[in-house]
């Protein structure tokens, strides 16, 4: 598989919720190889902002060779992306990192919170088994939930209780008595910690996707490391590189 950096065209951009945007990019051959759980680096058109923003792949359209990203505006870089209009150009590099390992038999449990939800869409599309999808939001702005309903049973948890279970994803999992043969997760670290504990308690195989500030995005700069149980291949010091060795890890592999 090869990583490419190229300037691509924005096909379509739409606001999904407060500060959350969906953007389709015509990425050519990058779309041929992209897998669920991988990410792309998007570069600013403002040369005073040097570093790419790593953003997970939400959907891949191989026929139209496009990749969809759904991202949250958290600073000046993502704010700039949110103003990109169809036909405008932006530089991207990808596909980066390792995606989820798909287990096509048994029952899958997809657990995601907030801006960890987008990669669940391409994952759900590619998982050919029974799926329960648990989504955690702050409030009633439940972006992507209706799209995910096409691929599995969606359960929602909201912090303010406006939709679904009041509380977090673990409250929803318990309320509905959900279990699985494999768990796939992406979201904030406290949520991932709870999902990992649940998977250990129930002896369910579990993969989680991590996030950290990145510079190069390809494993050279060692900015985005996480603590790993085993010695890592690069430095032999229990520091795995999220961009290169991850962002998806077996939950038992990493310390959260």
């Amino acid at each position, binding site marked *: 598989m090869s990583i490419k950096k190229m300037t691509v065209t924005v096909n379509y951009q739409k606001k999904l919720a407060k500060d959350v945007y969906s953007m389709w990019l015509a990425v050519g051959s990058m779309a041929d190889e992209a897998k669920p759980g991988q990410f792309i680096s998007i570069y600013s058109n403002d040369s005073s902002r040097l570093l*790419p923003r790593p953003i997970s792949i939400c959907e891949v359209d191989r026929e139209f060779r496009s990749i969809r990203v759904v991202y949250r505006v958290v600073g000046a*870089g993502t704010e700039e992306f949110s103003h990109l209009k169809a036909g405008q150009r932006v530089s991207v590099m990808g596909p980066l990192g390792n995606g989820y390992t798909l287990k096509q038999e048994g029952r899958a449990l997809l657990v995601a919170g907030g801006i960890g939800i987008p990669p669940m869409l391409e994952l759900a599309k590619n998982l050919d088994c029974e799926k329960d999808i648990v989504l955690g939001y702050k409030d009633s702005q439940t972006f992507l939930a209706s799209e995910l309903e096409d691929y599995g049973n969606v359960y929602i948890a909201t912090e303010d209780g406006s939709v679904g279970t009041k509380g977090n994803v673990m409250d929803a999992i318990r309320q509905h008595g959900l279990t699985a043969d494999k768990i796939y997760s992406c979201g904030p670290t406290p949520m991932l910690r709870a999902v990992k504990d649940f998977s250990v308690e129930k002896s369910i195989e579990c993969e989680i996707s991590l996030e950290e500030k990145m510079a*190069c995005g*390809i494993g*050279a*700069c060692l*900015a985005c490391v996480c603590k790993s149980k085993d010695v890592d291949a690069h430095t*032999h*010091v229990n520091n795995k590189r999220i961009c290169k060795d991850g962002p998806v890890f077996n939950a038992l592999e990493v310390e959260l």
Partner: protein
Amino acid sequence: MNTKVTIAGVEFKNPVTVASGTFGSGAEYGELIDLNRLGAVVTKGVANIPWPGNPTPRIAETCSGMLNAIGLQNPGVDVFIKRDIPFLKQFDTKIIVNVCGKTTADYVETVERLGDTDVDMLEINISCPNVKEGGIAFGQNPKSVEDITKAIKAKAKQPVIMKLSPNVTDITETARAAEAGGADALSLINTLTGMKIDIERQTFALANKTGGLSGPGIKPIAVRMVYQVANAVNLPIIGMGGIRTASDAIEFILAGATMVAVGTANFVNPYTTIEVIDGIEDYMERHHVDDIHSIIGIVK
């Protein structure tokens, strides 16, 4: 047209290399660019034993720059010799190994271990702002720069480049000290110590609190320091600090650098080194320069 340069008897096919720590040992960038094109690869710092580095977050973006506090995470010299040197030997480029340490004995041990290997030069990092011991502690005092340079030169089998810190009042003092200690060349500048505060979380953007500032924002400081050092010592200089285009590289060469290194720009555009190599040739053609030596340090 000649773009070959020679430093301490080592010939480089062109004057372009990479700044230590921005390029690993080349394996990752080798998937994107042809490493055979580079004059040399300067590796990430390697110590006598593995170092785990600092806690995260290790980087933060700044206006036209970035702060890093990686903390010299490295696998130690044994893994480096077994894995990284054979990898780099596959390519037609020179190998410059950046060496870090906490004590003089650490540096000397690594330098001695590298003595029997097939690397071309050593670059001694006495200027890392992100580690508590070693690093910059050696690089800010002229007397300790001279002492460590001497200690390393006494054991080194390859030519020695001392990498200078810009976090000093007068960089010509540490440059002269390195020269007095027997250095074969100098590289400058390392990063400038900086800080960023996350006002929403009301804490430091980096877990290490401070980090090294790099990127285009520091280039004028780097060019000034290369100019000062070039006019203060009689040693070849590898210039770096914010280079992202051939025009930037030419500024350093005109100021007195024999070679230039691309650092942070590798993160912005992985093809930067190649564009700089090609761009230097374009510049030479445009200005009818037959030999790159005829423009090194000509702006006085």
